[in-house]
């Protein structure tokens, strides 16, 4: 779900870089407000590497397969490190596998990273009210994963269809949006379910990991 090089006009790619610079600056400012901002860098980096390799696993949905994005989980676990982590992950994916692109790095970072920041806040909502429970963690984990990937798909489709260097007629455009949304619905559910299972697993095995960095 990364936009490759060659499709988007320069106005969109430049706007993507500008927006990414602004969000990265905001994230780094929040990170620097910590007592020792460097302390969490190795944690965020190694988990970025782990997310990167986990995203290479293919989950079979016969007759095809999908790979996990997990930007919702990244938001839930990494907090303000999520956006820089996603930017770095996308850069490595572009140069290593050609997924995404270099001119579209900014746009793709916004598509994947902004929903991750929203997922951070969704996952923090689990602390409101009564005590935390595995079920509550699971529900908010599902919501983080489901909403994050849903927002990413919506932004991806909107940017792609409005930026093609050709005029599609309205009927074709609506059909394409509908088809893409339907095609991604299983992925949204899978991301939500896996994120829910994952946070319940982490709560049992290493609960400190859920108090995002």
């Amino acid at each position, binding site marked *: 779900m990364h936009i490759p090089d*060659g*499709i988007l006009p320069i106005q969109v790619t*430049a706007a993507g870089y500008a927006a990414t610079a602004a969000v990265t600056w905001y994230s780094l400012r929040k990170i620097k407000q910590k007592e020792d901002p460097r302390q969490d860098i190795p944690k965020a*980096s190694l988990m970025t590497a782990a997310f990167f390799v*986990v995203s290479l696993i293919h989950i079979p949905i016969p007759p095809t397969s999908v790979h996990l994005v997990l930007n919702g989980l990244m938001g839930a676990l990494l907090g303000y490190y999520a956006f820089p982590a996603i930017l770095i992950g996308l850069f490595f994916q572009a140069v290593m596998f*050609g997924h995404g692109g270099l001119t579209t790095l900014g746009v793709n970072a916004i598509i994947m990273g902004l929903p991750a920041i929203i997922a951070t806040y969704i996952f923090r909502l689990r602390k409101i009210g009564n005590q935390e429970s595995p079920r509550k963690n699971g529900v908010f984990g599902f919501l983080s994963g489901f909403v994050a990937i849903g927002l990413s798909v919506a932004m991806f489709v909107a940017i*792609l269809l409005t930026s093609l260097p050709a005029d599609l007629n309205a009927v074709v455009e609506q059909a394409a949006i509908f088809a893409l949304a339907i095609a991604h619905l299983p992925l949204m559910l899978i991301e939500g379910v896996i994120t829910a299972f994952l946070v319940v697993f982490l709560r049992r095995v290493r609960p400190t990991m859920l108090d995002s960095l």
Partner: protein
Amino acid sequence: MKLAIDEYASLNSPFHRWDPRYKLVGLIILIFAFSFIRDLRLLLAMVLVTAAIYIISGLPARFILRWLRFPSFIILVIVLTLPFLSGEQVIASLGPLALRQEGLLAALLIAVRFACIVTVGITLLVGTTHLLNSIKAMRALGLPLIMADMALLTFRYLNELGQDLSLMLTSMRLRGFRQRSLSPAGLRTFAWLSGSLLVRSYERSEWVYRAMILRGYGQSSRPQGEYQARPRDALILGAIVLTAAALVAGDVLLGHNIAAILQ
């Protein structure tokens, strides 16, 4: 899982010898000039510039084919469907399918721009420079320290965690795990596998941080004088900037009028 990509970075060519900082600046200017191109006549010039850079860099053809052989799924879908979906002027029809001129030209523009940007990007970023050097050059050009540290550490552990995952997948298979269809139990297993890898990386990071502190992490400032630019570096950058400017000026002057080209 082997993620080595910069095995040709030690060759010797003008682009290999080019200061990585200048190379990064030149790369950004050139790929953005490429993405500015909308005039079909300039596509040929773009292809020639790309081919020249690739030939001068001395990389074997199979290197870039690794990235171009399996173009992005989205590029494939767009290039294969646009000629039939977009435009008014029908140039050929086959049953219910009508091949349209505007869509065909848009697909050509996208495909060529994609191939040129990927080729130049990969050539300059990992084909002629070690990826670690490219990241260090970004740091020298002002990339925030936190970003540079995160990128270097992430890169350092990608291979190791990739190998961990391979081992874990192998042991799952040896214990009889076969995932052929989608089921809640299968998803839970994938979640636990991913979770185990995340826990391992989290625990390892605590040791890594202690080791880094022992070696003085956070005590020294940005290293100075790591790169020494020579006149030749500026000269190559000048040539790249002029090429990019000529392409952009050409696109503006020619007005990218597709109808005019076809008449």
